[in-house]
């Protein structure tokens, strides 16, 4: 009976020791107050020591410029690091073409990481006047988080298409009243300002149309007009109903690049007095690339 009691006491004592937390506090610790936090989040950043082993750009689709605007060219970059995809600090990309301004994205967006590869998405702004070519070159650079080293990708080439685009203003020109036999009569409201809103870079053409009288019978021939890129244009190119390339005209590329057309009637023909216009003829003169 006595033995049983001893065993029972030992078991109770052991259970008590196991359930009571082992804590201690001295006399001076009697003012300890507060609540115990149930959990603590701990984050530890671990960076690898190995450098990035590979940077690769996915094929970039052929791009078309945006009229008077920007085309955002996406490029996917895959970075391999044996320390894991999260060991990539940053990725940047540059587009180059000989003789052209460099286009770039200095901070590509992190998309995902899996295994030893990280994927980044770059967006490069290309302008409407950037050169049309099949060999724009993309080069990506990735920086390692662990050791700060960086490596470049193999360049990838892509096509930037051609955009023939323009605005013209004003969209009409006039001479007011002309008298038969008058010479060197310049248009009142020229020049026609032709703004290149694409990346075409060549001469500018003009196709004329005979002006028709209000009576719908008499004509003021297009060949009685002259066009040029400077004022006065009386010695310029003869307008024709078939297209002509206007001498010395050029559709330069660039922000706000313009060309100007001036017009003149070198000698007013002897035709019946009335209003003549292309509107009467149901058409217009056409400025063309």
């Amino acid at each position, binding site marked *: 009976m006595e033995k049983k009691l001893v065993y029972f006491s030992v078991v109770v004592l052991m259970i008590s020791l196991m359930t009571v937390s082992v804590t201690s506090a001295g006399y001076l610790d009697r003012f300890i107050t507060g609540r115990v936090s149930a959990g603590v989040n701990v984050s530890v950043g671990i960076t690898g020591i190995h450098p990035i082993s590979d940077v690769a750009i996915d094929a970039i689709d*052929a791009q*078309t*410029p*945006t*009229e*008077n*605007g920007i085309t955002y060219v996406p490029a996917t970059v895959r970075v391999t690091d044996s320390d894991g995809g999260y060991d990539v600090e940053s990725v940047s990309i540059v587009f180059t073409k000989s003789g052209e301004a460099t286009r770039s994205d200095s901070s590509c967006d992190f998309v995902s990481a899996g295994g030893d590869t990280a994927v980044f998405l770059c967006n490069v702004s290309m302008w409407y006047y950037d050169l*049309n*070519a*099949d060999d724009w070159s993309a080069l990506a650079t990735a920086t390692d988080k662990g050791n700060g080293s960086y490596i470049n990708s193999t360049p990838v080439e892509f*096509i*930037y*298409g*051609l*955009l*023939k*685009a*323009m*605005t*013209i*203003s*004003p*969209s*009409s*020109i*006039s*001479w*007011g*009243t*002309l008298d038969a036999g008058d010479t060197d009569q310049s248009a009142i*409201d020229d020049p*026609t300002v032709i703004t290149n*809103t*694409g990346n075409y870079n060549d001469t500018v053409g003009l*196709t004329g149309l005979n*002006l028709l009288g209000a009576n719908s019978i008499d004509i*003021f021939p297009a060949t009685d*007009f002259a066009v040029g890129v400077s004022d006065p244009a009386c010695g310029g190119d003869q307008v024709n109903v078939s297209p002509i390339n206007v001498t010395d005209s050029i559709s330069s590329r660039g922000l706000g690049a313009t060309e100007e057309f001036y*017009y003149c*009637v070198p000698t007013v023909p002897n035709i019946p007095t009335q*209003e*003549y*216009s*292309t*509107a009467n003829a149901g*058409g*217009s*003169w*056409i*400025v*063309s*690339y």
Partner: protein
Amino acid sequence: MKTIKRGGLLAVSFVFAIMLIGIVSAIGVGYPYWENGQVKMTPGEKQTINLNLQNNIGDADVTYTITLAKGASIASLTKYTYLVKAHTTSTMVPLVLSIPSDAKVGDKIEVNLDFVTAAADAGVATGTSVSLSEAVSVDFEVVVVQKPVKFPTTWIIVGILVLIVLIWLISAGRKKRKK
């Protein structure tokens, strides 16, 4: 009375002047890059080239009219008029190119398309006046080239196997001679 008349005349002149200024009109046609302006195709081949109409300037919708001036023997369009909404850049014109199967290698066919936008409202002009509109021409040349000769993969494998067997036979023969 005279003053009122003069004021009215000035106002009318001002309105006419504004109308005469004319409206900015625009055109934009994008297309792919072709080296030397040439598209290479083989006899019997058919492909579609997408030409891109844009209207990114101004707030008015624009109607494009297309004329296939050259190359109708191999090129075709399903539509010749497109309404392009303002502030859009994604209207595509599919141009189908079909080379006859009996076309000769080396043949060159010129293709030319003219894109014209409807003349903007030029306002009111008195006397001699000319309306202006704009056009874009897309030109390229289709060159008929030979079909690339495809060597069947199975024949490549058979060839490699035959080569291996030959090398083995030669080396086995040499060993026998040495013995």
